[in-house]
């Protein structure tokens, strides 16, 4: 059972609050510089310095970690504040930087953000200059504390208590973890480091090896104040630095069932070894500590203690057939009130997609194929919830511009993960599937795929001004197509950018008919949601982008009402 905990903890860490599917803020890359080979260590002579204090009382914050990130500097640079709260980031190459200050038990602050948890803006750091007064007022993070007891009122140890918030991830609004702690021997917990916001508290008994496999009862996740369903849960509003104590909860046992069946591999033979785990799909609740069992040598498995709900059954073999090819499977599973027997899962090796990247040599110059990276994200939100988000950092293309990608069966996109390069076409069997995605079958080897990339993308730049005509940087510019068809999951046509220190924004989109709006605030990820776009459509400005066009568009800030 302890292995299940290890695997699931890994899932929690990977699927953090900012999903890999989120598009990063468009930092305006300098068009005069060639695409950098970011593996070389870059240094310069510029400096960013400042001071970190506590927002409430101005006292210096010691040992805060300040990080500066930029496309000019892979991995960024980090410095720590001294006894007076001062820091200095040295030897920086010129560029646009985002600066973040972090200290445990404080809310992470991004320089230029209007509110905690929101995106910051970038600062311009010229060659050999010292940019001073990049200061931070850190806000202490919130705390939720209380006691967990069982149905007899006795303290429950080894229970995971998780504070969760709704966030836009991979196409829908999901409940994502913000912080969690285990209860101690007297059932107490203290979840700290919470940014201001609305939280739901969930208590889940961690599965230790010490569970009776014949139990027909299990403790399912319980949400504050004491319900098994998220919809009946009471949200807790935490203000900056607030400690909410006395959150006591009783965890009640619920009926549990057994899920059993067989797993066969891609050749039809029973899978002799591996692990089957029952996972909670991302965003459906606390993800960790669910159940699992090792496969018996005859390929069968039996998992007890599963409460009613929707899950994903994952088969993990961990056996590498050849390098990089692991048999596995993930299937959705709905559990009601009775045992489920005869589940049959067929694992498959990841399917392979091979092909070439096509670029215009006039654009790419001496760049080798390995400068490019491709990804294969799921093409629908539901599949992404089951299969995960696809290979995180992307797979590098070979030097000769050929590539081999791996993907699980289903509908997928091919996307580029290379800064400064944009997709023009993805041809599978001659058909351009760039925006529709395509189906890949289990154990398939798809060949002859062509991925066309270009360095040029039409762009629109401009200033955002308030109603009084004053240019402002505290704006979110959303550019989206007039055709609702393209308001789809992971659409290339919907983009968001924030103005730079010169109050200029820049958005790059493929040619087409668009609308643009600058709003004062939108939640991370929400700007890509069709509901949001439909709401702001009326107030957005129409414009069109032609091939190779550089357009200028001034926008007026639209204030959306928010509490």
């Amino acid at each position, binding site marked *: 059972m302890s292995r299940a905990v290890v695997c699931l903890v890994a899932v929690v860490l990977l699927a953090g609050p900012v999903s890999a599917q989120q598009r990063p803020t468009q930092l305006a890359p300098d068009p005069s510089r060639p695409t950098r080979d970011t593996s070389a260590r870059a240094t310069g002579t510029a400096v960013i310095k400042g001071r970190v204090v506590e927002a409430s009382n101005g006292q210096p914050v*010691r040992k805060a970690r300040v990080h500066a990130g930029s496309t000019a500097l892979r991995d960024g640079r980090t410095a720590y504040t001294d006894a007076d709260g001062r820091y200095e980031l*040295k030897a920086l190459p010129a560029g646009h930087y985002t600066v973040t200050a972090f200290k445990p*038990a404080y809310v992470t602050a991004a320089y230029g953000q209007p509110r905690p948890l929101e995106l910051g803006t970038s600062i311009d750091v010229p060659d050999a200059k010292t940019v001073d007064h990049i200061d931070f007022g850190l806000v202490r*993070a919130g705390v939720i504390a209380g006691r967990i007891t069982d149905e007899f009122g006795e303290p429950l140890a080894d229970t995971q208590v998780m504070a969760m918030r709704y966030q836009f991830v991979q196409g829908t609004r999901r409940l994502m973890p913000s912080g969690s702690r285990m209860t*101690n021997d007297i059932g107490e917990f203290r979840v700290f480091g919470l940014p201001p916001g609305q939280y739901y508290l969930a208590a889940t008994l961690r599965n230790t090896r010490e569970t009776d496999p014949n139990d027909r009862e299990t403790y399912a996740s319980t949400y504050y104040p004491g319900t098994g369903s998220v919809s009946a849960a009471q949200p807790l509003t935490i203000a900056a630095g607030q400690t909410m104590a006395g959150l006591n909860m009783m965890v009640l046992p619920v009926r549990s069932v057994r899920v059993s069946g067989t797993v066969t591999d891609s050749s039809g033979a029973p899978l002799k070894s591996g692990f089957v785990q029952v996972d909670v799909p991302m965003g459906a609740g606390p993800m960790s500590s669910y159940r699992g069992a090792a496969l018996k040598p005859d390929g069968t498995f039996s998992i007890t203690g599963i409460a009613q709900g929707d899950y994903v059954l994952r088969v993990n073999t961990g056996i590498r057939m050849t390098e990089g090819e692991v048999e596995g499977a993930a299937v959705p599973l709905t559990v009601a009130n009775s045992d489920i027997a005869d589940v049959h899962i067929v694992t498959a090796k990841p399917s392979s997609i091979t092909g070439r990247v096509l670029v215009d040599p006039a654009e790419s110059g001496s760049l080798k194929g390995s400068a490019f990276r491709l990804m294969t994200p799921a093409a629908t939100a539901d599949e992404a919830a089951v299969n995960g988000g696809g290979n995180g950092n992307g797979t590098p293309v070979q030097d000769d511009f050929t590539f081999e990608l791996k993907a699980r069966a289903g509908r997928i996109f091919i996307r580029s993960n290379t800064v400064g390069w944009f997709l023009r076409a993805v041809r599978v069997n001659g058909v351009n599937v760039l925006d529709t995605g395509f189906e890949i079958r289990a154990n398939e080897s798809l060949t002859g795929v062509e991925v066309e990339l270009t360095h040029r993308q039409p762009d629109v730049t401009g200033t955002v001004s308030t109603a009084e005509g004053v240019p402002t940087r505290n704006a979110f510019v959303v550019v989206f197509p007039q055709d609702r068809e393209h308001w789809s999951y992971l659409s290339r046509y919907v983009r968001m950018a924030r103005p730079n220190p010169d109050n200029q924004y820049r958005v790059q989109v493929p040619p087409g008919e668009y609308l643009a709006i600058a709003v004062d605030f939108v939640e991370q990820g929400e700007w890509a949601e069709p509901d949001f776009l439909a709401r702001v459509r009326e107030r957005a400005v129409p414009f069109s982008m032609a091939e190779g066009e550089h357009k200028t568009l001034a926008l007026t800030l639209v204030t959306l009402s928010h509490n």
Partner: protein
Amino acid sequence: MSRHGLTAALLTSLTIAIAVAASAQTATPPAGTAVIRGRVLDGDSGRPLRRALVRALITGGTGDRVVLFEGRRENRTATTDEQGRYELTDLPAGRYTVTASKGTYVGLSIGQTRPGDSPKPLDIADRQVVDKVDFSLLRGGVITGHVVDEYGDPVPNVQVAAMRSQFRRGQRQLVGGGGSTVVTDDLGEYRLFGLSPADYYVAATYRVPPASEADDDVPGYAVTYAPGTVNTTAAQRIALGSTRSMDEVNIALVPVKISQVSGTAVNSQGQPMSSAFVSAMDRNNPFGSASGAQIKPDGTFVIRNVAPGEYLLRAQNQPRQGGRSEMATTTISVAGQDVEGVQLVVIPPSTASGVVLVDPAAAAATKASSIFLMVSPIDPQMNFMDTSGRLKDDFTFEAAVQPGANMVRLLSMPPSLALKAVRVGGVDVTDTGFDVKPNEDVRGIEIELTSHPTVVSGQVTDAHGASSKDCMVVIFARDEAKWEGTSRYIQTARPDQDGRFKVSGLPPGDYHVVATSTVQQPDQAGDPDVLKQLRDRAAALSLGEGETKVVDLKVSTGS
């Protein structure tokens, strides 16, 4: 599948053997007819413990050897109801250890009044119903406190663990000892719980956040022991015996300068090792989290966030199916400065081969495959590979062996046999071990077993003449030179419920033998200071080749 450690043992009990044969074919737990029942109570209040877990683990007929079916332990579990009652049914006949546990209570087996006592096994026949197998569990001990940095500010996210002092490899070391590791909260507070009664030392490990290139002044802290020292000898000792909790065990973290270790790792062809990892293990804190770094495609690596200390660097690649992994190790000292230019060249392990010699009469009765051995580094911290080997039918063997100082260890053999001598090149290396050079095989190892091991048995009584089981029998060589390392010349045994004990397999020679209540854990007998104290109260014992002796002992009390 890897075969680290025990994966099989010899079956001697006929009843168990039958059960095994049946279950090994069906791969499902064999049904039985015996029943074990009883109650689990809270030791302080006497109230019944609900939802306590009772586990019956089959231990087979050989005493401390564990029988494994298809590589998995056979066990049955049951949970107690509201009256604290449990019932384990359908048990196959056999010898069991029964353990009760619940969350943060200290788990106990039958025969233990405190953890660490030898559990008393329970022999059960078919259709037998054993009632009143009761347990009285005590809540685990608690240690609380808070962790601060050099400014006195509380430090969250610091890993805090309760450590115990154990005598290992000839020196006193602090090792992780029971209770899970906890992490400090935003106020820097921690609470360690579920601790069995013992002496503890509290260690705080600050986890440095991942660094990037050219980070200046990354704050680092050494593994710090309460109240604020890096010296294990100066660490505060917390005796959780009769007092079950201790508060205000605070730790002031000791700041250290963080360094970086860099170098190259290549394989035996001089090519860079790709997609492999260099790990750095702190020799003084082997159970702490190891740091390391991925080896880049050009074979270079940079390990960041290294606190001062002695480290074992290791690069090891994954073996191809059926092959052996290649490995390189080196020890480096980090003292606040960056270390550059470390060169690691991985090489495949050498091969150790030889034969096991048994007298012909015993050899006929012995299945060669029941003998399982390992040629492993004398330093247990260095054990990174599968160096085990099973005997072929002709009693020859072959095993992988890492370069360096190694010893032959017999992991499993029939109880009627005992180790007599190990010879390499005609030289007796039984207790000294032998050196293996890189890329050089060692052939012709002779392992001599005797079918007439020495046996020392007897009865322990207390001052009133009643049988005593609450003590440890220690037999140790008179010659102090034989007390080094994991010595064959020191053995301990706990008497059973009738005060009887038995020790077999001691090499012939002169010994001291004593029954004492001051030695609680077997590892204490490895401490020369403890042995010197026991010497005064011990009786003399001489063992000849193959001799059996009966010795009755009186428990010696006193510190």
